[in-house]
């Protein structure tokens, strides 16, 4: 049996590991992983790519396939929190997100058209609405944005290379060994936007192994792998 999983690139690490573990337990199943941007994957599936399971990093891409009737009912398999990543050099200067307002800082965020950027924009809106933080400060922070990357990892790369001082990324991005040179700073307010990873079995694919793999991800070994790579359990709600 072959299981063809199309998954968002940000899941490269945990899904790779999960596939190995799952493969050990189910020797009859060969897992093929295909990582790319969520929309790339959606476009490929639309054009008839042979996939059994689709795990996206945004609801947009999933919704697109749902509308086309290409997937079954999706379910979330993980969540991811936004964090502020700061280079080691700047750890002193940037202790809290409020410090981002300092003039001259180089801040890199996601493009609002990609999931990370959309979440970041919502985050800024929340912060602006938070009297404790202040709209003026958010405006100053936005002023420090030098780039809106289309890939989370591009933000990480810029921080690792020291091109930028701080960036807004997912919690999971800080778990990679290379990211140890970055410092994470949590955002203050409680009601933060959270990224959700919907997964769905394709209607035209090999459904049984896909469902079984999804089920595995929800078992303790599965959630454990996700957690170790910085992802939160799916929780509930939309």
């Amino acid at each position, binding site marked *: 049996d072959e299981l063809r999983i199309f998954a968002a690139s940000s899941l490269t690490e945990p899904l790779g590991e999960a596939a190995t573990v799952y493969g050990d337990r189910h020797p009859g199943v060969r897992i093929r992983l295909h990582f790319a941007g969520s929309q790339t994957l959606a476009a490929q599936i639309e054009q008839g790519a042979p996939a059994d399971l689709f795990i996206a990093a945004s609801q*947009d891409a999933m919704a697109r396939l749902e509308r086309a009737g290409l997937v079954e009912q999706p379910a979330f398999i993980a969540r991811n929190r936004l964090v502020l990543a700061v280079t080691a050099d700047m750890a002193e200067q940037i202790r809290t997100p409020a410090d981002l307002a300092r003039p001259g800082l180089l801040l890199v965020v996601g493009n609002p058209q990609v999931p990370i950027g959309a979440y970041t924009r919502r985050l800024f809106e929340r912060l602006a609405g938070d009297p404790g933080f202040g709209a003026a400060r958010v405006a100053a922070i936005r002023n420090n944005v*030098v780039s809106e*990357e*289309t890939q989370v990892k591009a933000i990480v790369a810029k921080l690792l*290379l020291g*091109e930028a001082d701080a960036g807004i990324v997912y919690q999971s991005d800080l778990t990679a060994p290379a990211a140890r040179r970055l410092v994470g700073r949590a955002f203050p307010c409680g009601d933060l936007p959270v990224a959700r990873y919907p997964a769905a079995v394709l209607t035209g694919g090999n459904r049984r192994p896909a469902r079984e793999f999804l089920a595995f991800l929800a078992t303790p070994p599965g959630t454990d792998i996700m957690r170790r790579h910085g992802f939160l359990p799916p929780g509930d709600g939309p």
Partner: protein
Amino acid sequence: MRRPGPFHLYLAGSGMLIALLILLPIGALLLASSPMELAHLLGDHEVLQAIRITLLASLLALPPILLFGLPAAYGLSRLDRRRRRGLEMLLELPLVMPPVVAGLALLLAFGRRGLLGDLLAGVGLRLPFTLAAVVIAILFIVTPSFVRRCSLLFDSLDHRLEEAALLLGATPHQVFFRVSLPLARRGLVAETIMAQAQGIGLFGAVILFAGNLPGRTQTLSLAIYSAFESDPPRAFALGSLLLLISLLLLGAVRLVTPRGPKP
């Protein structure tokens, strides 16, 4: 003309095959969005900005490409074979680099912590996240193969004509400007057009090295990529737009450059 023999069919067949290979995807892309959508895009501020930056960057890249690329190509074509080999390989290398790698390499060289970081900081220059970075990325990707190919064109010139010019009193630079350049003109114009085209389509290296800030460094190509993640049909439409703009541009360049006589 003569009656077409099997060889002519082979030529025509090859041509048609390649035309199909190009036309099918392009046609499919253009069909995927309606003219209305395209017209609509032209009213979008961000799109217009991206077009502006695309044109600006490729326009800014043009003078250095010509100013340094042409003489470098000419110099290369005048070197002896042994010395050429290494240089030619050097010029071919950037072609191999996938966009991410090229972008990373550029950051490693010209970034804040890069090889030249301190030097550039010393003179108060910060390249990444600026239009300059877009231009440098274009230069890095486009110039080497431009130089390599122009040197091929210079190679194919008749050396006697340059000697004849020398004997009429032309200094080497006059020979270059009045004989070599005009003789290779057709080819050089074509190469320049292609370099520009390549610059317009550049994506990976630009996004890594220059970042993606609308109105500052976001080229049309980056805008397309951004749109693709949230609104694929818009990306299709933007892609069509890019093609149409380029078509106009390529046509315009052809109109303004009267072709020299075929040597």
